[in-house]
Every structure is written in C-alpha cells, then in structure tokens.
C-alpha cells in the first residue's frame, strides 16, 4: 500500500473519533491521497486553493478555536515557502497545527529541482517548539499519527507519497520521541532516516559478511532528537555515519553532530545531498547521482573504520 493511502485511511479513522480534526490542502488533495476524504467529510476537509501562506495562517486561526488542523502539500511548499507563517502564526503563537510535507528530497523524482526539498528539515529545525517526524514505513506512520494528535503543538510530518519498503512489523513498539534501534552492532553506528533506512539495512548486511558489525538506529524524529539513544550507541561504537535524504547541512548529519560535539565527540561521516539542488530523475538514478546507495554507505563506513 502507498503511504498516502495509509495517511488517508488513518486520518479517516481518527476523524471519526475526534471531531476537532480538520484538513486543509492547497490543491494537492488528490496526489496526496486525500481526494476520497474530501467527499467523506466535505465540512472538515478543505481545498483552500493554491495559497500555502494563507493556508498555514488559516490553520493557526482554526487551531486557536480548538480545532486540530492538518495542512497538506508537497514538502518544499509546506516548509521553505511558508517558513514565516510556520514560525509566527503557528510556532510562536503556540498553535496545534500538523504539517504534512510529501515527496521530500529526491523522492520528488520527475518533479525535479523546484520540487525537491533538500532543506526542509534545516529550515524548520531552528524554529522553537516544532516536532519534526519522518516516517520510515507505513507501520511507523500508522503508529505515529495517534501520538501526534494526542501531543499538543506543531508537528511536521515529512512523508513519502508512494510505496515505502516495509521495515517494521506491527509488533514493533513505537514511541514518537524515541529512536528505533533496528539492528545492534559494535563497530559503527549508522543513524538513518526515511528512504535511507532501507539502504542502511542492506549496507549492514553486507558489512556483516566482512565481519563489520554495524548498529542501525532510525532517527524518525529529528526534533526533539533522542540524545540518549545516540550517545548510548556511540559510546559503544566510537564512530558514526549518518544517512539522510536531505542536504547534509541542517538535517540529520547536523543534528547528530550537534549531540555528539557537545557530549561525546567522535568521527562522523555523512551520506546525503552534499549542498546541492535537486534535478529530475527516477529514484535509483537520483540515489546513484547523490551517492545515497547502500554501496556508498559501505564505502563511507570503511573510510571511517
């Protein structure tokens, strides 16, 4: 199932039990899988037109009335385009708005450079009070949504629209503010998020054949970051690699380095977009072009060891 279908399915069920949830989109309901929801709840799902700045502040206004608005659009328009509205109307005003940005980073594929948010986490991470969450797979998104609704305050959900590889089973425990340890290891810590989790798992399997034991930790929530899990892992491995679908400036690499620099400095190497803009391409082509494949992780791990 595509992640957008899971989103629609879960929101529909949450809307049934919580009448304060409303959804606003800026003319991207269909691509984000919410076309059907619009028909089901015409008085709670609104297309506000192609006007993202207005959408963000309208949502803040509705939140001040007790509603829990979700605003939905592509990741670059949900973040860099409306940065000031998120900062002032939503975060500074302490409003309970949930922001969904889809197709982050290179997953925008054929929409190309204008639609590729390599900086969305960096832009939002420096705004106080916002939680930033990137679901890795459908199970994680499903488990996160009720926690996000129960937690007052702004949340940015950076999610894939299409099919994500299943990583977690239904039985896996999920806590929005705790990193998920996918594999334990002793030689290197690989902190990863989003589409890079799958690459990290492949890399770890191949590394194990060469007797290199990699620990894989999924940082699904980059803010507030789970310092404890990062430090615990690195105190054991003494070295780290980060893997993200984002500019290495401002994203996961930065966030992990901030934790380590202050508490436990060790060598850290990044996998991700090296301060470049995006371009059109299919996901495998783009992963190759930006050196974001498991082979690149293996190479980087070997460099650091």
């Amino acid at each position, binding site marked *: 199932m595509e992640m957008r279908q899971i989103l629609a399915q879960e929101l529909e069920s949450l809307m049934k039990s919580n009448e304060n949830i409303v959804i606003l989109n800026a003319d991207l309901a269909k691509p984000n899988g919410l076309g059907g929801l619009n028909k089901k709840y015409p008085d709670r799902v609104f297309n506000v037109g192609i*006007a993202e700045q*207005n959408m963000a*502040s*309208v949502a803040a*206004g509705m939140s001040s*009335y007790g*509603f829990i608005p979700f605003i939905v659009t592509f990741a670059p328009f949900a973040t860099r385009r409306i940065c000031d509205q998120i900062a*002032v*109307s939503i975060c500074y*005003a302490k409003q309970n708005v949930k922001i969904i940005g889809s197709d982050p980073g290179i997953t925008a594929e054929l929409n190309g450079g204008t639609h590729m948010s390599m900086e969305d986490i960096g832009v939002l991470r420096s705004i106080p009070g916002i939680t930033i969450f990137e679901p890795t797979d459908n199970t994680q998104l499903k488990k996160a949504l009720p926690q996000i609704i129960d937690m007052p305050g702004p949340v940015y959900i950076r999610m894939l629209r299409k099919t994500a590889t299943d990583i977690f089973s239904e039985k896996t425990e999920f806590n929005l503010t705790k990193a998920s340890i996918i594999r334990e290891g002793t030689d290197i810590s690989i902190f990863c998020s989003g589409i890079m989790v799958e690459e990290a798992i492949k890399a770890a399997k191949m590394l194990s054949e060469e007797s290199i034991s990699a620990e894989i930790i999924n940082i699904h929530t980059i803010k507030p970051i789970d310092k404890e899990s990062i430090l615990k892992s690195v105190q054991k491995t003494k070295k780290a690699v980060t893997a993200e679908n984002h500019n290495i400036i401002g994203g996961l690499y930065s966030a992990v380095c901030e934790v380590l620099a202050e508490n436990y400095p060790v060598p850290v190497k990044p996998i991700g977009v090296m301060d470049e803009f995006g371009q059109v391409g299919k996901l495998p082509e783009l992963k190759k072009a930006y050196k974001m494949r498991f082979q690149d992780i293996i190479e980087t791990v070997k460099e650091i060891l």
Partner: protein
Amino acid sequence: MDFSSKCLQIRKDILSEIASVGSGHVGGSLSVVELLVILYYKHMNIDPKNPKTEGRDRLIVSKGHCGPAVYAVLSDKGYFDKNLLYTLNKFGTNLPSHCDMNKTPGVDMTTGSLGQGFSCAVGIAKASKLRSDNATIYAIIGDGECQEGQIWEGAMLASHWKLNNLITFIDYNKLQLDGKVEEICNVAPLNEKWKAFGWDTINVENGNSCEEIDKAILKAKSSNKPSAIILNTIKGYGVKFAEKAESNNHSMPLSQELLKEAIKELDGDI
C-alpha cells in the same frame, strides 16, 4: 456612553504608555482609537473576566504594531491592571510591541508579521461557522499591509467560504513606514479591489468618527458576504506633533515633555 471622552482618555493612555518606554508606534495606534472604542464599548460580545469564553466575538489586530492602542482599551475594559501599561516593551513585559495572545489577556491572536493575522482571522471566522456559535470576527489591517500578497489570498478564500461573520477594517491613513502609500506602492482603489474579491465594501469618509464607524458596522452585520470597512483615518490623529510628523510617526520618540504637551492639547488647554 460618551464615546468621544472615552477616545480622549484612551489616547492619553496610549501616549502615556509609549512615553514610559520613550518611543513606539504612535501613528497607527492613534489612528484606530475610535474603531477600538466603538468595538469594545458597543459591539463586541466579550467578558473581560473570562477572556477565553467560547463563542465570544474576537478581534484580530493584523497590524500588530498597534499593540499599545489595544492594551489601553483592554486595560480600561478590565482585562488587566492599568498599571501594567507602563511595562510596555520593557524586558519581561506581557505587553510587547506587537500583539501576543500568549502574553496578554484579551488578545485573540498573535500578530506582527504583516498579512498573517488577517489569514488567521479568516480561519477563526471559518471555525466559528463550523461551531455555529454566531460569533462575529473582526480584523484590523493596515493600508500598507494590503501590499502583502497574503491579504489577497485570505480575501479570496473568505468570500469563497461566504464568511459573512468576518468584518475587516482597513486603517486607510495613507501612510506607511517609509512614506506615502500612494508613492511607495499604491493600494488604491481599495473599494474596487475588495469588491472584486467578492466582499461587501463600506467606505467611511471619516474613519476617526465613532458614529460613522458604528453605522458601518451595523450595515456590515446584516451582509451575506464578508465586509471590508475602509476607514479614511489620519495617522497620529488627535495630536498635532504626531499628525505633522506624517510617516515619521510610524514609530517615534515620545519624551515626557512631549507627553505633557500632547495631554494639554487633548484636554483643550492649548
């Protein structure tokens, strides 16, 4: 109620609070005094003892720099102690330069980044419709603020949503920070623009007349569309040196000496 003496008193309070910190947004605060007085003392369904009463009427001052005028009225209505006015813009205050709903009792939305408060008001008016609570939502925007694209995004949506519970006042004092609106980036003709965006418009010839504003509000309340009330005001109204300073009154120094002079003038002594 004698609205003109209430306006006089509010003007004195605004100037006193700004003088207590030495400078501030004098011009725009003085131009909306009559509007705030007619709203808070005649039209708004509010309870200062319970500032967050559900279903209350709300005011979003999108031109958030006019906080000093809002605070003078809120304190007079009993939302908080009048002495707090003298903490305006002092470190740790609950009365910051721009309106902050998390700091000041009675402030319905945090504003200051121009254009945003108006969109918030659109969201609030929609929320009120969804709750069917019959509240009236008022917004105040500046004429210079109409240069923000977000205003027109919000205007389009409000009429599309048929938010006839939203009444927006444009403080058309013809001046913005750097000079005359018509010379910087003309927003005229405001009437035609708002009409074209699907709003009912009312032009108030003298936007510093409580009586004229009152009539416009009564008319707007019976509309089946959102209403834009264009108030032709004078920036710095009521105080000669402020009016004379024109755009320099947007934010200006206000010494205790100038305050004394202004109060004398307002009392009719000079």
